[in-house]
C-alpha cells in the first residue's frame, strides 16, 4: 500500500507543467504539453484489468496528438504481468509506427523483466494472406467439395468390394468364421431389438389403419382398410421401418465401437499380432446383421398383421374369419416375399456404412461422435435409395 501516494506525486508534477489536455482514470494518467505527451501507468496492469484498458487507449486517439514524442512513466504501477506488458508494448509500437518517439521511465526491476520478455520474444503477428477474389474462392470451395465427394464415394465403393470379398471368402473357408463373436452381435443386433421392432410395427399398422379407415368410410369401402394396411406393411413398412430402427440402434453402435477401438490403437495392435481386424470386427457384425434383419422384418410383419386384425375386428366390427378370408384373397405370400427380399440388402447397407464410419475415423474424440451420427444418417438415406431401386425393378417386372 506504500505505493498509493506515488501516482499522486507524479500527477502533481504533471499538473505543474501546464499541459493542455489531462485525463486521469484508475489505470492511467495522460497529459500533453507543447511538444510531448506523458502517459502514466497506475494501479494493476494485469490480465484481469486490461479489458478495461485496451479500448480506452484507442479512444485517446494518441496518434492525432500535435506532438512528436511520448513518455511512458510507471511510478504508480503496482501489479504487472505479461499481458499488461504486451498491451504497453503494442501501444508504444503503434505510436512508433506512426512516427512518434517513445521513451520509458520509472519502471521497477520486476516490471522491466516483463517488458524485456515481450521485447525478446519473436513477435507473433497475424500472417496476412492476399485476399482472394470471391469467385476464385467459390470455385476453390466447389472444387474441394467435388474432389472430396468423389473421394468419399470411391472409398465407400472400395470398402464395399473388400467387405463383399471377405464375406465370400468366409463362406468358402468357414474355419475363419468367428462364431462366438457373431453370436454376441446377434444378441445385440437381433434379440435385444425384438420388443421395440414388434411394438413399432404394431403401432404403425394401427395408425395406418385408423387413417385409411377414415378416408375409405366415405365411399363405404372400409373393408379395403385390410388390403391397404396389410399390403403396405408386408411390402414396405415392415422392412423399411425395421431397417431404419436397426440403422439407428446398431449402425451407430458399430461406428462408435470400432471408432473407439481405432482411436485406442486396438486395431493396429490386432494387425501387428497377425489377427485380421476384418475377420474379427467386421465380418461377425455383417453376418449378425444379415441374419437378424430378415428375422426382425418377419417379426415386424407379424406384429403389423396382428395390429390390423385387432383394428378390423374391434373398430370395423368385421368378424375374425371374414378378415382372414379377405387377407388370404390378397395372395399375401407375394407381398411378403417382396418385403423380405429387400431385408438382406438393407442389412448390407447398414453394416457397410456403420463399420466403414468406425474404421476410418479420424484420430480425435469428437470425430467418433460425428462419424456415429453420419453413419446413421447415411445408412438410412441409402436404405431409402435401395428401397426406391427395388420399387422400380418390381414395377418393371410387374410384381
Amino acid at each position, binding site marked *: 500500500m506504500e505505493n498509493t501516494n506515488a501516482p499522486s506525486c507524479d500527477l502533481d508534477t504533471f499538473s505543474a507543467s501546464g499541459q493542455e489536455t489531462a485525463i486521469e482514470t484508475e489505470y492511467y494518467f495522460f497529459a500533453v504539453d507543447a511538444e510531448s505527451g506523458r502517459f502514466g501507468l497506475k494501479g494493476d496492469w494485469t490480465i484481469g484489468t486490461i479489458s478495461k484498458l485496451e*479500448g480506452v487507449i484507442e479512444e485517446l486517439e494518441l496518434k492525432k496528438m500535435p506532438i512528436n514524442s511520448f513518455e511512458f512513466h510507471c511510478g504508480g504501477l503496482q501489479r504487472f504481468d*505479461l499481458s499488461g506488458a*504486451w498491451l504497453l508494448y503494442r501501444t508504444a509500437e503503434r505510436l512508433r509506427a506512426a512516427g512518434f518517439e517513445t521513451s520509458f521511465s520509472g519502471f521497477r526491476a520486476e516490471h522491466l523483466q516483463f517488458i524485456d*520478455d515481450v521485447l525478446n520474444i519473436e513477435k*507473433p503477428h497475424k500472417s496476412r494472406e492476399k485476399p482472394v477474389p470471391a469467385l476464385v474462392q467459390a470455385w476453390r470451395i466447389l472444387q474441394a467439395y467435388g474432389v472430396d465427394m468423389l473421394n468419399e464415394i470411391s472409398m465407400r465403393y472400395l470398402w464395399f468390394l473388400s467387405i463383399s470379398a471377405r464375406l465370400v471368402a468366409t463362406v468358402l473357408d468357414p474355419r475363419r468364421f468367428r462364431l462366438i463373436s457373431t453370436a454376441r452381435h446377434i444378441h445385440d443386433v437381433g434379440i435385444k431389438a425384438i420388443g421395440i421392432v414388434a411394438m413399432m410395427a404394431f403401432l404403425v399398422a394401427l395408425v395406418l389403419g385408423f387413417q385409411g379407415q377414415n378416408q375409405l368410410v366415405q365411399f363405404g369401402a372400409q373393408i379395403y382398410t385390410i388390403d391397404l394396411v396389410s399390403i403396405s406393411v408386408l411390402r414396405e413398412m415392415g422392412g423399411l421401418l425395421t431397417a431404419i430402427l436397426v440403422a439407428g440402434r446398431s449402425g451407430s453402435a458399430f461406428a462408435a465401437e470400432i471408432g473407439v477401438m481405432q482411436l485406442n490403437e486396438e486395431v493396429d495392435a490386432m494387425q501387428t499380432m497377425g489377427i485380421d481386424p476384418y475377420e474379427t470386427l467386421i465380418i461377425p457384425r455383417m453376418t449378425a446383421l444379415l441374419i437378424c434383419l430378415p428375422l426382425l422384418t418377419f417379426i415386424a410383419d407379424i406384429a403389423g398383421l396382428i395390429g390390423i386384425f385387432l383394428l378390423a375386428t374391434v373398430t370395423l366390427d368385421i368378424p375374425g374369419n371374414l378378415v382372414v378370408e379377405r387377407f388370404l384373397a390378397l395372395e399375401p405370400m407375394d407381398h411378403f416375399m417382396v418385403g423380405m427380399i429387400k431385408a438382406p440388402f438393407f442389412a448390407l447397407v447398414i453394416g457397410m456404412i456403420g463399420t466403414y464410419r468406425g474404421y476410418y475415423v479420424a484420430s*480425435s474424440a469428437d470425430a467418433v461422435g460425428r462419424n456415429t451420427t453420419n453413419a446413421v444418417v447415411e445408412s438410412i438415406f441409402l436404405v431409402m435409395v435401395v428401397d426406391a431401386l427395388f420399387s422400380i425393378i418390381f414395377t418393371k417386372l410387374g410384381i
Partner: protein
Amino acid sequence: MSEPLIQVRNLVNRFDSHTVHDGVELTVFEHEILGIVGGSGSGKSVLLRTMLGLHTPTSGEVLVFGEDIACRDSGKLSHCQHRWGVLFQGGALFSGLTVLENVMAPILEHTDISNSFVEELARLKLTMVGLAEEGFDKFPSELSGGMVKRAALARALAIEPRVVFLDEPTSGLDPISAADFDQLILYLRDHLRLTVVMISHDMDSLLTICDRLAVIVDKRIIADTTEVITRHPHPWIRAYFGGVRGRAALGAA
C-alpha cells in the same frame, strides 16, 4: 521463497481399505520449483488431484492461496482456478479446437478482453513456449508429442497464473526435447515469477531444475532441498537416486 503458497496438512486418502496417503504434510513456497517423486501407485496423481480440488480427501486440509479447498467448495475453488494453470500428462487439449483456440479459451472464459486482443495474447504465449506460427491453426490430433506439451503449457499459462502444476511434463519426449522443455520451465519460472509443482520421473529434469523434492514413501512425504534428498538414508530414496548419484559423480570427475 519464504511465503508458503500451498500447504497440505495431515492429508489422508483412503480407497475402501486401501490407504494411499496417511498424514501427508507438504508446503510449497513461492517462486520455487518443487518436484514430486514416488513409486508407481504411491499416490502422486491422487495428491495432485487433491491439490487441484478434483478429489475430496478422506481427511486433512489443503490450503491453496490460503483457502482450504479440501471440501471442494465451489466458491473457494473458483477463486483458485483463476490463479493456477495445469499441464496434464497427455496435454488434455480440447480436440475440437485449434491450438490457438485452446489457448484463447481460458482467457475468454475468465475476462472481458476483446477477441482480437485475446488472440494476440494467445499468440504471444504460444510463441513464448516455442511453438512455430504454422502450428497455431492445427488441431491437437495433428501435433507431435512435444508440440502437444508446449501447446498445453501455453494454455496453462494463458491466464497469467501464479502457480503451474505439471504432470510428467517431459514424459514421452526425447532427451533433447526434454532438456529444452526443462530450460523452458526454468525460464518461465524466472521471468513470469511462477511457482512450479511438477510430478516427474525424469531424473535429469528433477536434478537440474527442481529447488526442492518431495518424495512419497510409506504413505507420507519426505521433502527437502534436492541436495539433501539425493543423500537421504531412506532405502527407497537411496535406491531411486543411487544410480543417478553415481552418474553425477562420474560427470563431476
